[in-house]
């Protein structure tokens, strides 16, 4: 039993071992706020989970969309400010897992309780914001980049969730769910890539 506990502890420690924060730099030449906007739009690993959340929030109706619209950018900003002071990143493939979870939620159109969209938005925002902030800390960025990212998120979530809320014909909502299955499929492949160490 003790050996098992020790093995589990070592395994947990290995999983929790913080990794280096990586960032790619988008320089627009228009200042850090625009650099932040450019970062989000040029980063599918950040953009796709945000779109997936907006799709799911839209499927949950206008109230879900409003929750995601407010909470995701704010949580992203808060997480980023924390990350600026702790330049480490999650030791597991956060992007891949979020692709999987959100993609499955969209594909199944699972009717979770009302607060679930809010909880998802806060969790996603804090986690991705933290990673962005940690990466920006070493890339010479700062809070103004995060403001740009949050502003871009606000626009993306507003457009996507409003688009989905406005869909009335059943087949159009099904098309959204098909997009969710694609996101989940990409997430599963990404987990495979992570385990293989391709990136």
């Amino acid at each position, binding site marked *: 039993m003790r050996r098992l506990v020790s093995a589990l*502890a070592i395994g947990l420690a290995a999983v929790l*071992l913080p990794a280096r924060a990586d960032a*790619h730099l988008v320089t627009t030449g228009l200042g850090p706020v625009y650099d932040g906007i450019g970062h989000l739009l040029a980063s599918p690993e950040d953009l796709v989970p945000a779109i997936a959340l907006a799709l799911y929030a839209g499927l949950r109706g206008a109230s879900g969309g409003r929750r995601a619209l407010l909470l995701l950018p704010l949580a992203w900003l808060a997480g980023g400010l924390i990350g600026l002071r702790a330049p480490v990143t999650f030791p597991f493939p956060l992007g891949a897992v979020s692709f999987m979870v959100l993609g499955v939620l969209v594909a199944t159109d699972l009717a979770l309780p009302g607060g679930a969209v809010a909880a998802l938005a806060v969790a996603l925002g804090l986690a991705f914001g933290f990673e962005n902030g940690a990466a920006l800390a070493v890339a010479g960025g700062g809070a103004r980049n995060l403001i740009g990212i949050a502003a871009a998120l606000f626009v993306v979530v507003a457009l996507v969730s409003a688009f989905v809320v406005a869909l009335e014909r059943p087949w159009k909502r099904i098309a959204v769910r098909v997009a969710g299955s694609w996101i989940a499929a990409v997430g599963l492949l990404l987990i495979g890539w992570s385990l293989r160490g391709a990136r």
Partner: protein
Amino acid sequence: MSRGARRSRAWPALLLLALAATPAHAHVEKGQAAGFLAGLHHPISGLDHVLAMVSVGLWGAQLGAPAVWLLPVTFPMVMACGGFLGLIGVPLPGVEIGIALSAILLGLMVALEARPPLGLAAGLVGIFAIFHGHAHGTELPPGQSGLTYSIGFVVATGLLHATGIAIGLVHRWRLGAIAIRVAGALVTAAGLVFLWRAVT
């Protein structure tokens, strides 16, 4: 030193290891667009894949709702499972034979306008999707992004299904329904050629 003392020293060391932060590291992303294009190109680079995936869409169109959207949802998800198995190194014997069989059987389903229970249809599509994913989901060209490659790969697969569904819209007309069944027979014939090549 007693075992208890060794353990009492080991735990703080383990905790320290877990909490030890390594420096952050910035880099410039490379191969994003190339990865996407490579992924987009991969499913359409082989006729066996194209025919099987378009057949899924055709069959879905013949079966109507809910199969018309359930089958194209099933295929990418299970195909990703096949890709995942390939990525983590799980071997899958007879991949090329499986792909050829997918063209044969899916073409046959279209040609016969078969209407099995929905679960059976989804299961059939899912089994073959594993072979397609295993064969092509893992071939990332060096220096390109795994993320954008995967996005391109899944999008191309989905668009092939959508193409099949779009073609299948002619099913509402009698001549169109016949044309789709003929197309299914041609896919089966092509699948037999693929099978011949795979076993010889």
